[in-house]
């Protein structure tokens, strides 16, 4: 007996066809190897090699030659090599209060800037997501615009604003709020201001991207379960934006700890930070080994929180602030 099936039954045929279809051919192995190789080669050439050179200089001794350090290995004859290794530079970093002050100053400056950036950055990012998407795009564009203008130019603008005869002082004088101009520039406060101003976008963008992806229904669920808006913020929004906060903080902290330009331009002559110490040792004192030792230690200071937070981010288990459903 012949039974004609209605059209919707032919769907099954399509399914079996697609099941039988051959899986797409794997990409060529050469392509995979190249893909894996390229970033590794890049890192070896432009990160590891320079790092090894710097490390090598940091364990050599200072001499007045060109280049101003003693080679680690010197060949005496066919059978013997002289090796000069010195940890003097590292010991000096601890012993000399000049360096330790610079370290403490820089860590403090970077920490305060990071905290301030976090407060303002979170506020701005949170405000951004509550704005309609049209206006939001323009605001995001304006924030990134400050990235595209020259860094130096922006710092110079602050000098113009805050200098002894700058705009702020002349305005304050004009409205008789003060009688004598105030010396704004030349202290740690203005350095901090400059850092917050310059690195704020580093904080805004990672937090913004997390908040934007956040499942709104999670916040609605919190409200539905009886949580007031402020409680919802501290117990849901804030913990869920942790991955963004971590990456924002690492970005701001690691860039501001070694910062040279901002302390140089907005700080006073006695503003002692790691960036300036590096510059002075390298170019004024021509003490490459000491400068290299500072650079190596700075790198560890930057890497360390990165490692700690990376573990934290990994531990918080793929939250990413979004639900996969």
């Amino acid at each position, binding site marked *: *007996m*012949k*039974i*004609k*099936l*209605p059209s919707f*039954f032919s769907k099954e045929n399509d399914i079996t066809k697609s099941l039988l279809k051959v899986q797409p051919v794997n990409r060529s192995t050469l392509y995979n190897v190249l893909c894996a190789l390229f970033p590794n080669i890049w890192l070896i050439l432009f990160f590891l090699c320079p790092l090894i050179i710097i490390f090598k200089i940091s364990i050599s001794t200072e001499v007045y030659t060109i280049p101003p350090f003693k080679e680690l290995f010197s060949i005496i004859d066919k059978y013997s090599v002289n090796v000069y290794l010195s940890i003097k530079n590292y010991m000096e970093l601890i012993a000399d209060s000049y360096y330790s002050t610079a370290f403490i100053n820089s860590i403090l400056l970077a920490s305060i800037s990071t905290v301030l950036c976090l407060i303002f950055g979170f506020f701005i990012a949170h405000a951004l997501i509550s704005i309609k998407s049209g206006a939001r795009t323009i605001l995001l564009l304006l924030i990134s615009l400050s990235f595209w203008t020259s860094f130096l130019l922006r710092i110079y603008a602050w000098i113009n604003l805050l200098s002894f005869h700058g705009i702020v002082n002349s305005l304050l004088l004009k409205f008789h709020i003060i009688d004598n101009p105030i010396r704004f520039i030349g202290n740690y406060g203005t350095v901090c201001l400059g850092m917050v101003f310059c690195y704020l976008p580093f904080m805004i963008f990672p937090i913004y991207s997390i908040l934007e992806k956040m*499942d709104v*229904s*999670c916040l*609605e*669920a*919190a*409200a*539905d*379960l*009886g*949580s*007031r808006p402020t*409680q919802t913020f501290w*117990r*849901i929004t804030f*913990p*869920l934006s*942790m991955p963004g906060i971590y990456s924002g903080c690492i970005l701001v902290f690691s860039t501001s700890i070694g910062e040279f330009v901002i302390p140089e331009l907005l700080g006073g002559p006695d503003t002692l930070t790691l960036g300036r110490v590096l510059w002075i040792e390298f170019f004024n004192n021509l003490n490459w080994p000491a400068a290299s030792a500072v650079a190596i230690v700075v790198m560890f200071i930057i890497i360390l929180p990165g490692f700690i937070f990376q573990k934290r981010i990994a531990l*918080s*288990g*793929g*939250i990413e*602030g979004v*639900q996969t*459903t």
Partner: protein
Amino acid sequence: MPGGGSNIAMREPEIWEDIHSNPYIKIEDVSKFHGETNILKEISFSVYKGELFSLLGQSGCGKTTLLRILAGLDAPTSGKVIIDGVDVTNWPSYKRPVNMVFQSYALFPHMTVYQNIAFGLRQEGLIKAAIDKRIKEILALVQLSGFEEKKTTQLSGGQKQRVALARSLAKLPKLLLLDEPLAALDKKLREQTQFELVNIQERIGITFILVTHDQEEAMTISTRMAVMDDGRIKQIGAPHDVYEFPHSRYVAEFIGNINMFEGIVVEQELDYVLVEVPDLDCWCYAAHTGVVPLGTSVNLAIRPEKVMISTVKPAYPRNWTKGVVKEIAYLGSISVFYVQLKTGKIMTAFTTNLLRLSDRNFKWEDVVYLFWRAENSVVLTS
């Protein structure tokens, strides 16, 4: 309703049929505009205590918006929401004695199952021992005992759904809202969970309002359901009433399958009307749901499972037609016969497969007679 009238008088009236019962949740003239779009158009209905009420409709009909208005997540443009005698229209979500199970479950991904459920309980200022006890009970109810310390990201879809349910139930709300609670589950699990949901609801007696686009789901679990279309409620009633006695063409076609024929009323009796249906080439007695004047053009609706097939011509003159079997769809438990009538229109009929296909006495291209009982056809005027 022919034949039904006496039955209703015999049995205990349902809570919504009893004029003495007070509505527990009352929605009065609720309208909602989103910009220029009118999402809800003056919706009014009541839900009684302990009901499992479904809002059924296609996506975009406004059912989810209505649910969100009940939860306090959206505000109505006009109208009132009254829960247990209190007007809560202007109450924020966190104050309402209402909880919601979200379609995406909206579990907090950074918390364990315990913390998720405790979140809502802490807001009530319960002490830890009381919270622990409540969580233990509620997890036992949804059959997830021992899952307290699991991360929500480690759970399967069905488990997440239960945690979401437990989290909302733990607050012992006056009204529980469920937004497509089973949509994300696969078919087998969905059917199983449907009955669990009904069981849980019956045991704790909380009033449920559920949103779904799945008519089978709504029919299976609800005490009453409201069919919504384009921001309006088309019909409210118990599932069997809505299915058997649809008020409009929309509801008839939306719920289940139906054969629809245009006709003209030629005779009106006390309980029946006689409709002339050109497609069926006969005059048909039909039950009617309202007053239908003579000469009105109406739709005669007959459910396919109410249509019987035979090769023998019926002995009476009304309520049957003749056609040619064009297609037979064998669906395992039932077969669907597509019968072409004289005018070319196709009428469908379901038959249970009591016999194996090869033993059937009518086949493809055979001439068959289709007939149905008068009380199984409905006259629709709108």
